[in-house]
C-alpha cells in the first residue's frame, strides 16, 4: 500500500518535473526568438516542411469532413423538414470545433511527429552538441525557427481546413442533395458571427493549438532519450500528448467562449 502511494508520488513528481523542464525550455526558446529576425530563411524552410507539405492532407480531410457533415446533417434534418438549416449546421460545427481541432490533430500526426523525430535524431547524432561546440545556439538555430513556423502554419491550416470543409458541405448539400443554394448560404451567414464564431472559433483556438502542439513537438524532440528507441517513444508521446492537450484545451476554450 505504502509502496503504491510512493509510486504514485514519484509519478506525480516526475511529471511535474517534466512540466517544469518544458516550461524552462519554452522560456529559453522565446528568449531566442530575437535571433530569428536575422535569419528568416531558416523559418521559411520550416514553414515549407510543416505548412506546405501538410496542405494535401489538410485539404483532403477538410473536404471529406465537410461532405460527411453535409450528408449526415441532411439525412437527420430531412425528417424534420429543416434542411434549410443545413448551412448553419455545417458551418457552425466546422468553424467552432471540427476545423481547428481536426486540423490540430492532423498537424500533430503529420508535422509534430516529424519535428520530434528530426530534433531527436539531431540530438542522438550529437548535432546539437556539435553546434554548441561551435558556439551556435541550437535554440536560435534549430528550435525557435521550427516553433515559430509551426505556430504560424497552424492557424493557416485550420483556416484552409474550415473553408474547404464548408465548400465540401456545400457540394454535397447543394449539388448532390438539392438544398437551395441561396438558403444554404443565407442561413449560414445569418447565424455565424465574425467575432463570435470565426475569431473565437477558428482563429483563437488554432492559435492556442498551434502553440501547444509545437511546444510539445519541439520539447519532446529536445528531451528524447538519445537512442533509436528513445526517438520512437518521443514521437509517440508527441502525437499522444498533443491529441490529449488539444482535446482538453478545446473543451476549456469551448466552455469559455460558447458555454452558457
Amino acid at each position, binding site marked *: 500500500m505504502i509502496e503504491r502511494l510512493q509510486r504514485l508520488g514519484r509519478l506525480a513528481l516526475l511529471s511535474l518535473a517534466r512540466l517544469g523542464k518544458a516550461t524552462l525550455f519554452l522560456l529559453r526558446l522565446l528568449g531566442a526568438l530575437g535571433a530569428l529576425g536575422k535569419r528568416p*530563411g531558416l523559418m*521559411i*524552410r520550416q*514553414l*515549407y516542411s510543416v*505548412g*506546405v507539405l501538410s*496542405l494535401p492532407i489538410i485539404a483532403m480531410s477538410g473536404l471529406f469532413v465537410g461532405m460527411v457533415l453535409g450528408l449526415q446533417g441532411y439525412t437527420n434534418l430531412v425528417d424534420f423538414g429543416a434542411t434549410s438549416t443545413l448551412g448553419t449546421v455545417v*458551418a457552425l460545427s466546422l*468553424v467552432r470545433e471540427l476545423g481547428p481541432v481536426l486540423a490540430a490533430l492532423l498537424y500533430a500526426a503529420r508535422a509534430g511527429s516529424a519535428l520530434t523525430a528530426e530534433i531527436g535524431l539531431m540530438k542522438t547524432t550529437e548535432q546539437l552538441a556539435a553546434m554548441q561546440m561551435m558556439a551556435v545556439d541550437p535554440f536560435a538555430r534549430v528550435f525557435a525557427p521550427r516553433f515559430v513556423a509551426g505556430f504560424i*502554419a497552424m*492557424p*493557416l*491550416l485550420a*483556416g*484552409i481546413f*474550415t*473553408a*474547404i470543409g*464548408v465548400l465540401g458541405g456545400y457540394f454535397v448539400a447543394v449539388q448532390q442533395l438539392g438544398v437551395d443554394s441561396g438558403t444554404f*448560404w443565407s442561413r*449560414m*451567414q*445569418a*447565424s*455565424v*458571427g*465574425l467575432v463570435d*464564431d*470565426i475569431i473565437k472559433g*477558428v*482563429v483563437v483556438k488554432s492559435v492556442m493549438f498551434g502553440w501547444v502542439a509545437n511546444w510539445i513537438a519541439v520539447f519532446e524532440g529536445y528531451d528524447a532519450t538519445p537512442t533509436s528507441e528513445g526517438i520512437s517513444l518521443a514521437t509517440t508521446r508527441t502525437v499522444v500528448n498533443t491529441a490529449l492537450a488539444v482535446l482538453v484545451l478545446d473543451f476549456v476554450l469551448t466552455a469559455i467562449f460558447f458555454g452558457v
Partner: protein
Amino acid sequence: MGTLKKLELAVGVFVVLGLAAFFMLAMKVSNIAELGEDKGYKVTARFENIGGLKIRAPVTLGGVRIGRVVGIDLDPRSFEALVTLSIDPKYDHLPADSSASILTSGLLGEQYVGLEPGGMDDVLKNGSTLKLTQSALVLEKMIGRMLTNAAAGDQSPAKTP
C-alpha cells in the same frame, strides 16, 4: 539559391491560401455584412416577457428584416424587459406609434421582433421608445391557462344543478 526561391514561392502560396481561406470564411460564411449595422439607430421597447428572445435576433417589418436586437436588459424598477433594437437607417420613416411584438418563426423556430407600423406622422428616432408592445407567447402559460379554463368549464355545470 534556386531551391530556396522555390521554397519561398511555395511558402508564399501557402500563406496566401491560408489568408484567402480566412477571407472566404469572413466574407462568405459569417455575417460580416451586418457588422456595420451599428450605424443603425437605436430604439427601445419594453416587454412584460420576452420569452426566448436573444441578442442578434432579427427585427422585421412585414417579414422584411430591417434590423436586429442589440441589447436585452431588465428595468430594475418596473421589472419589465428592456429590449434595444438597432434599425437600419435606410428605414427612417417608421411611425412613432409603431408596435412591437415578439414572434416565433415557425412552431419551433427562433424568436424575433416584429414591428407593425402605426399611423402617426412623427417618426422613430435614435433613443425613441416603442409604447405598444406585445410579449412573447409562452407556451407553458398558454397551456396552463387552457387547462384552468377547461377545469373551470367542467366544474361550473357540475355546481349549478
